[in-house]
């Protein structure tokens, strides 16, 4: 028991430290907020026009579409910073330290990312959400239970996203240049999670495949829960899908890590 509370405590300290570190650059913060707002604004204009020009082909209401588009831009951060840190630490050989640390690399990275996430949530996502709500009048969740389910779903989405990024980062042990792999990961997630185009607009054959892939659990499923577009059974299915993919990706990640530890060749000393 004491072991567990100790490790939780040390992880909380790591999370807190990253949280504070991200507060340092204030000009960038303002630029980021303004940039995100502009993108949300333009996306909403774009989709509103498309929606109004083609009245017969719509499958959702305009309000729902606007809410979806507005939220995608602030919900998921697909590219996580630790992927690049790991790459540079592998190249410099610093990664060796991770093997002797008392905390597992995965846990350490997760705690670090979580700190960054909450920092982002407080200073960016929530302010942006409030701004978008007042500026564009997006829909609020239908009920209190929808809010709770949405938060749960976003949390699962976050773990899934972390796992995919973790797998990419570990791949840096085999591929020394992560740039390409990272672009592949980002673009695949962006497209298949419904971050660029909502999955509703995918042709049926593609949608029937995409909805079972891990990516749908990152943006599309949480937002559908928020919008109240899914029945109770569909919500349960969505959670099941997210959990199954979390288990699979966690397994892949730990297999990779085992393999790395057993035949690691460190650059430099």
């Amino acid at each position, binding site marked *: 028991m004491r072991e567990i509370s100790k490790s939780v405590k040390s992880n909380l300290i790591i999370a807190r430290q990253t949280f504070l570190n991200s507060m340092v*650059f204030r*000009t*960038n913060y303002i*630029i*980021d907020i303004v*940039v995100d707002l*502009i*993108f949300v604004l*333009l*996306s909403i*204009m*774009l989709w509103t*026009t*498309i929606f109004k*020009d*083609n009245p017969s*082909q719509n499958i959702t209401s305009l309000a729902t579409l606007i809410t979806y588009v507005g939220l995608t831009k602030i919900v998921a951060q697909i590219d996580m910073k630790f992927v690049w840190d790991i790459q540079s630490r592998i190249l410099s050989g610093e990664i060796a330290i991770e093997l002797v640390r008392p905390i597992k690399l995965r846990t350490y990275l997760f705690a670090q990312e979580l700190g960054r996430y909450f920092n982002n949530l407080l200073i960016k996502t929530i302010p942006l959400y409030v701004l978008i709500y007042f500026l564009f009048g997006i829909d609020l969740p239908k009920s209190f239970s929808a809010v709770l389910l949405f938060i749960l779903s976003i949390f699962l989405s976050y773990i899934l996203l972390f796992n995919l990024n973790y797998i990419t980062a570990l791949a840096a042990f085999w591929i020394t*240049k992560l*740039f*390409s792999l990272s*672009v*592949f990961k980002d*673009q*695949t997630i*962006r*497209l298949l999670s419904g971050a*660029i*185009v909502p999955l509703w*607009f*995918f*042709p049926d054959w*593609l949608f029937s495949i995409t909805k079972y892939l891990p990516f749908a659990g990152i943006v599309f499923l949480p937002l559908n829960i928020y919008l109240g577009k899914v029945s109770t059974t569909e919500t349960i299915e969505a959670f099941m899908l997210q959990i199954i993919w979390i288990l699979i990706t966690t397994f892949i990640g730990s297999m990779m890590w085992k393999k790395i530890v057993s035949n690691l060749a460190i650059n430099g000393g």
Partner: protein
Amino acid sequence: MSGLRLYIRSMILQVRSSQQYRFNYFLTIFTVVFHYAVQLFAIWLTLSHYDNIRGWNIYEISFIYMFFVLSYGIMITFFAGFRDFSVFVRNGDFDILLVRPHSTLFQVLCGRLELTSIAQIASGIVLFVWCNYHLHIEWSLKNIFLLIQGIVGASIIQASLLLFWSSLSFWIVDTSALVRFGWTLNSNYLTYPIEVFNKTAKWIFTVFPIAFISYYPANAILNKDENGFGFIGQFTILPSILFFALVFLFWLYSIRHYNSTGN
């Protein structure tokens, strides 16, 4: 004359050094092509559900996109030195350029030749052939002229934009967010007909001339927007030169203002 010789020499060096990492070179090309393919696929998905956006079909919108990809490819081949310029300034490396006997702009240009831009240029050409096959554009002398001046003008504007962000890095420590902003704006939003945005946005993108990168030159050839002032796409080259001149003045002014971050 000696400037030109120096430039050619450094370009030859760049070509040689890039040949050292063959595998990475091809991987990067493949990655870039994949990136654009996904962007286009997203547009295709949208338009397979809805037939058109403001009367523009998939081929016409791809034609707009083609201007963006091709002009970016041409521009970045020579201007890649300005892509991560703020890192250069932040590390204090810029000081070296100030004591050398050539203009700073020239030295940055000499520093980098981006050969992976073949990916953008090839993607652009493939897109062009594909769109042209479906759109049946009549290639009269006028249209050929419009195409060339459009691509040249668009490349100049993309270059000016990078130079603009680079000038700003003398005032703001980290401009990476702005560079990303400009790129996303051009690639994800301004590759749609700008009629989808409201009047204010249209004015902003016309005065700060980034709509001349893809929408206006494409419209000059396709003639889709007849009652608006879409016709100004025929003169893309003029705003591009004006914009470059203004940005260049700002660049000179910013360098004068510059205090080193090094010690």
